[in-house]
């Protein structure tokens, strides 16, 4: 798997993959070389997840108008 491809993953996908790898490895009999491959992949995924969580953009909040168009929504401060 290329690094570029991994970067295109959503957080959810990356997290799911990471969980899957951890489970496979913990479940047991993976040959050493494969285990190391999986480990590398898992660490890469963990890094991606972490980055995604750290570098979040501002939350986008929109409201659906009567005409079916969306516009950004800002809470009115009291």
């Amino acid at each position, binding site marked *: 798997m290329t690094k570029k491809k991994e970067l295109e993953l*959503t*957080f*959810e996908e990356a*997290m799911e993959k*990471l*969980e899957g*790898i*951890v489970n496979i*490895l*913990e479940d047991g009999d*993976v040959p*050493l070389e494969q*285990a*190391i491959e999986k*480990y590398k992949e*898992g*660490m890469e995924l*963990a890094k991606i*997840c*972490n980055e*995604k*969580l*750290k570098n*979040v*953009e*501002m*939350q*986008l*909040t*929109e*409201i*659906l108008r009567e005409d079916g168009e*969306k516009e950004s*929504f800002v*809470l*009115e401060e009291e």
Partner: protein
Amino acid sequence: MMNEQMYLTVHALTKYIKRKFDRDPHLQDIYVKGEISNFKQHSSGHMYFTLKDDQSKILAVMFSTYNKKVLFKPENGMKVLLRGEISVYEPSGQYQIYVKEMQPDGIGELFLAYEQLKKKLEKEGIFHPDRKKEIPSFPSVIGVITSPTGAAIRDILTTIKRRYPLANVIIYPALVQGRQAAPSIVKAIEIANERKEADVLIVGRGGGSIEELWAFNEEIVARAIYASDIPIISAVGHETDTTIADFAADKRAATPTAAAELAVPHVEELMERVLNRKIRLMRVIKQKVYTEQKRYEKLVQSYAFRYPKKLYEEKVEQLDRTLERGKRAIGLLVQEKSERFHRWQERLYLRHPKDLLAQSKKEYDQMKKRLIRNMSEILKNKQKDFLHHISILENVSPLKIMEKGYSLVYKEKDQLVKSVKDVSKGDQVQLALSDGKLICEVLESKGENDG
């Protein structure tokens, strides 16, 4: 005869009575309580029933324009409070109450309506746990169906922002209070499902009285929630009771803030989770390497690697032993076989045919001797017989007889002449004598009887 004009038609009488009722101010706006029986709702929507207590009863009609406002469904045996007017139904001449308002007696109307709807939808399986959809773990878009101006939206947005800034929020505005609230909420749910933007929907509003929250107890809202393809978290800020919408939703939250918390994971929890997975990965790989190393070491330390010679020495020894055993076994076998052979050979010699041959030869010689002896005996006897027969034969031979003076007469061709008739005068005949022949001619033939 009385005057005919004294008599009233039934219709006129009924009209008169009806007018009496209609003019009575007390009967025009009257409050009555009793128990419903014989309840029927016509396809037109009008309701007909009898209101009774333990002593009396009165017919009651509630036209659909009025009964539409009744939130609960009247049933037989139900105690109700009615408001209406009394009038006469002319075709039957019966007075009855024309009901304009109806409320359950004893319990609140809303409570009754709530209980009735809850029971109905429960029976249909709308609240069944099997029908609940799963809320996604990491939604990227969260749809919120509520009023854009209420406290609810503020709580939801701040909570999502605090917990999970990854998610975007789309607000599908809806009225959440008043008569239009229920259809408005239903429409918003439908729009959200058509647009398919959100991974999860939060439907709700802040707290309020049961009347203010009533839209969330309406059947159409419950059905819209049930029909939604997008999982729905209900968030009706209601302290004590659960709304029908809460029952129909895939997940229920007590407040909008709680709903937002259910909808999204906490970013810090996620970081912790990622860290936890990372640690587990490292641990598992460390363990794996350690295990493999131990295995390797154990192999290297093993007997075979330490004393490789031992590996084949043992085999060599084994081979030798086996060969030896083989040889021994073969020797034994040969010995046994040859012993058997000798035994049989001996037995065979014992039965050699030379004695039999000698005896047979002896028997043969004896037999031969006997045969020769017997044969010569038989031959001698036969010779003797033969000679005897010959002497007999000699005695009867014609030659012997002829020696005594007899002769034989032959005609030509050696035909013996036995009668005078066999020859004629002049025939030549031969006379055979013992010492030769005489050729003679018949001169005369004389028979015995001639002489």
